[in-house]
């Protein structure tokens, strides 16, 4: 394998690496679940992971990986059969095996060989074997030892105890099976066209092989047999031996169709048996030896002559035999005809493609270059703007254009749909990211000696793929922090009257056009005094800090090198992590909210803007400037009368709305614009809500509602308080989108410099 690797093989290897990584990523959390409850399904899923890894690695001749996967498989098999009981050590061992596999995959990816992993593989395999031995020694043997030995030696397909196969497993078998078979079909067709190209062949073989494995695992014996027979044929073809017919693909395709039918059968709840299985097996068997010779023997030609002819086979067998006078042309013709008719009958088995369409629905993915997707999304964004410009074109003002309006509305609808579609393309659920954290929490809690329940929620929330990559590190650091500093050790918790087990919640949800990812723990909370003390000792603040709000103080934990941990553990405490959190969040223009209650825990929200978001916006006007407010944040709007307005001694204006008083923020002050009127009674007050906080925004006029494509302000400008981005209007102008969350901060920053309070 290490010698001559051509591009095709590289491709196969790369595919193997990607696939295996995906599998490991999926299953790692489940391994940890194993420790908590031994659900047979989880067990089987993990077993399958190592089994397929073993299979694929074996096929690609990555021996060391195969070895480890095999050992892990053995261990799991024993556990699954109840021959040994699962102990926490096993979970750790399996996790380690996953780590090994990850490392090996990396090695494979760069070197196309896993030779360097030999040492690690030895250790790993040895540990696994040891675990098996120890476990076997400790467990009272269920049966005699030979029985166990047999299970260890025998592969998977041979002797599986009857599994409880539920609908979900069945469904996943069907989905996977259909996919494998379709891939195989593609491979078959490609191979039919270019039979000298090894790549489709290898692919084909692998697909059929995996399918066979799955069938065996689920106990669909008939399908397994057929797949096995196909595999034999393919193996022959792969090794370069000629097959009996010049286009074996036809009969193989026929067999594939049978398998597909059987899979459909299963998806409909039946048993997936194949009618006339033996006949089909024979059909495939016929492909194996040089068939014409056999037919000739049947026709009465001396078998020795035939084999002699086969020996010297350069010309078609028939011609040689005629040349040698060992067979008459008639005999050969009959033989050829027979061969032909055999082929034809096989062809008939190939069903029309239409019949395949009935195969159970499944999910299909394609990998697309990210750059292309970005371009597409940008283009669609521009199209929305162009559409706006067209429909709201100033030239059309005042014209009665009935048909144009209709056409325009239709187009708007299509554009909207297109846009929604485009937005979802890049989005993937956070579930994958969250599930990766299960392993992390498991490891850390073990190391830190704490008991933790990790609660995940909102896993289905979708975030842009690149954003997910950017927040992976921050999440790791936040979780580490929560576990290491936030949560107390069990005894301390009990002393504080809390449950022994801490809870860390990781959640994601949509809020105000952003995605909020929250890490919450019920630990001791942030220590205001400690943070302050540290900040003062580091000279980060002046004075004693008594004038700082909790929020300002909590935010200091994100400064580089800031750590209040009394001692640096190998999990955290160096003060690097939180800095990373902030940096990465800034990269995606995200924000961080920290809140904490001493003794009850802390909560950190990562506020992530959607990349290409379209929001429902309300356009407001101040003087000659317009700005957009997210409609979601608007509670109500009204024209105030004088009795509703109160002015406090320190200059704040308050508006009374029923039983509540809200602070009034003047938009013209934020935008530094001259409004139509400074009298509150001349304008409109809009009640806005941001989290718990409510206030009124004073504007001249509400212009109207519109779909708004959010564009970032240029990086050159950076973050601006009170503004979350901008959008392009129908007339080509740019309008700012206001950030409700930071409007108040924005006005506080200006209050000192602004004009004398002469209003109302």
């Amino acid at each position: 394998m290490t010698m001559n690797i051509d591009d095709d093989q590289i491709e196969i290897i790369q595919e193997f690496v990607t696939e295996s990584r995906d599998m490991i990523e999926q299953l790692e959390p489940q391994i940890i679940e194993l420790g908590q409850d031994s659900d047979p399904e989880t067990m089987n899923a993990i077993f399958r992971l190592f089994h397929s890894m073993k299979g694929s690695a074996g096929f690609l001749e990555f021996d060391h990986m195969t070895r480890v996967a095999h050992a892990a498989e053995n261990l799991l098999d024993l556990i699954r059969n109840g021959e040994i009981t699962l102990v926490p050590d096993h979970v750790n061992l399996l996790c380690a095996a996953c780590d090994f596999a990850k490392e090996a995959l990396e090695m494979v990816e760069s070197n196309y060989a896993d030779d360097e992993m030999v040492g690690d593989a030895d250790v790993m395999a040895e540990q696994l074997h040891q675990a098996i031995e120890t476990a076997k020694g400790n467990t009272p043997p269920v049966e005699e030892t030979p029985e166990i030995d047999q299970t260890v030696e025998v592969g998977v397909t041979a002797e599986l105890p009857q599994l409880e196969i539920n609908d979900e497993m069945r469904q996943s078998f069907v989905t996977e099976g259909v996919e494998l078979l379709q891939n195989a079909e593609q491979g078959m067709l490609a191979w039919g066209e270019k039979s000298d190209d090894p790549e489709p062949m290898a692919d084909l073989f692998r697909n059929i092989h995996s399918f066979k494995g799955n069938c065996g695992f689920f106990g669909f014996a008939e399908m397994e047999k057929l797949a096995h027979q196909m595999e034999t044929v393919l193996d022959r073809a792969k090794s370069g031996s000629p097959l009996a017919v010049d286009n074996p693909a036809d009969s193989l395709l026929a067999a594939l169709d049978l398998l597909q039918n059987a899979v459909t059968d299963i998806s409909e709840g039946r048993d997936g048996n194949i009618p006339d299985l033996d006949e089909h097996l024979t059909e495939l068997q016929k492909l194996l030896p040089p068939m014409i010779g056999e037919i000739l023997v049947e026709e009465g030609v001396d078998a020795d002559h035939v084999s002699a002819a086969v020996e010297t086979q350069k010309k078609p067998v028939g011609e040689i035999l005629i040349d040698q006078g060992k067979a008459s042309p008639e005999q050969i013709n009959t033989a050829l005809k027979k061969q032909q008719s055999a082929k034809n009958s096989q062809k008939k088995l190939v069903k029309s493609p239409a019949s395949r369409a009935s195969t159970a629905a499944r999910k299909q993915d394609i990998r697309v270059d990210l750059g292309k997707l970005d371009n597409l999304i940008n283009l669609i964004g521009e199209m929305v703007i162009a559409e706006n410009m067209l429909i709201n074109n100033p030239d059309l003002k005042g014209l009665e254009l009935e048909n144009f309006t209709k056409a325009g509305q239709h187009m708007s609808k299509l554009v909207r749909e297109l846009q929604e579609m485009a937005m979802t393309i890049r989005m993937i659920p956070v579930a994958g990211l969250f599930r990766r954290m299960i392993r992390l929490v498991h490891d850390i809690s073990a190391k830190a000696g704490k008991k933790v329940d990790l609660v995940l929620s909102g896993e289905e929330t979708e975030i842009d793929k690149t954003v997910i990559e950017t927040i992976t590190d921050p999440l790791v650091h936040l979780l580490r922090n929560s576990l290491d500093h936030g949560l107390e050790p069990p005894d301390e918790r009990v002393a504080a009257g809390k449950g022994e087990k801490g809870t860390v919640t990781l959640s994601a949800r949509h809020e105000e056009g952003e995605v909020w990812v929250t890490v919450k723990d019920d630990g001791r909370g942030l220590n205001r005094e400690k943070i302050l003390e540290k900040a003062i000792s580091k000279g980060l603040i002046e004075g004693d800090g008594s004038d700082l709000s909790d929020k300002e103080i909590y935010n200091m934990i994100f400064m580089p090198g800031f750590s209040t941990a009394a001692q640096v553990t190998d999990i955290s405490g160096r003060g690097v992590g939180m800095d990373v959190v902030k940096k990465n969040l800034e990269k995606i223009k995200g924000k961080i909210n920290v809140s904490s209650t001493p003794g009850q825990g802390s909560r950190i929200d990562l506020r992530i803007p959607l990349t290409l978001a379209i929001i429902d916006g309300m356009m407001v006007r101040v003087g000659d400037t317009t700005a957009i407010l997210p409609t979601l944040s608007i509670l109500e709007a009204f024209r105030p009368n004088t009795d509703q307005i109160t002015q406090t001694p320190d200059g704040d204006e308050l508006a009374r709305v029923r039983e509540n008083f809200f602070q009034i923020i003047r938009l013209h002050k934020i935008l530094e614009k001259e409004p139509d009127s400074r009298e509150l009674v001349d304008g409109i007050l809009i009640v806005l809500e941001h989290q718990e906080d409510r206030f009124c925004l004073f504007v001249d006029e509400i212009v109207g509602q519109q779909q708004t494509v959010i564009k970032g302000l240029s990086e050159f400008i950076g973050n601006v308080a009170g503004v979350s981005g901008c959008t392009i209007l129908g007339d080509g102008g740019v309008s700012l989108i206001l950030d409700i969350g930071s409007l108040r901060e924005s006005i506080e920053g200006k209050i000192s410099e602004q004009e004398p309070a002469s209003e109302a």
Partner: protein
Amino acid sequence: MSENSTAAVETLLGTDENEDTQKDKYLTFHLAGEDYGIEIRYVIEIIGIQKITEVPDMPPFIRGVINLRGKVIPVMDVRARFSIEDRGYDDRTCIIVVNIEGTEVGLVVDEVSEVADIPEKNVEPPPRTGRSTGSRYIQGMGKIGEEVKILLDVQKLLFDEEMQQLLGTVDEAQE
């Protein structure tokens, strides 16, 4: 106006935009009675002045943002950058769109003149006056016969420390 300028610059820039042909070429423009030049490789296009949307909390020389065919780009007034008195915009006022390391910024100038060829030997080092705010951004003095063009360092013009500080304070105001 904007079409004219764009067309003009296209002919000026030529279609072949490789490094060699752009060497020693400067886009020159008028500003308060002086001629300035910037290296042509930074220039993307020239457009007429258009409606600028102001952004709060910006230094005075950042006039706001404009829509350049669906892209939102910030606009810097070069007069204000050099603390030269504002004279308002007219139909000769142009926005030169430059791109530095992927950041696109529009520069408002009084009037775009031409693309001039100034070989290295005709470029003198910047004078050491240090008196005006503008001289920090000078890359050199280009001579074409009797004429003198002040060649600007676009990098410094856009990413000067002062600018960084201003942006920095804005960033911190976020906290």
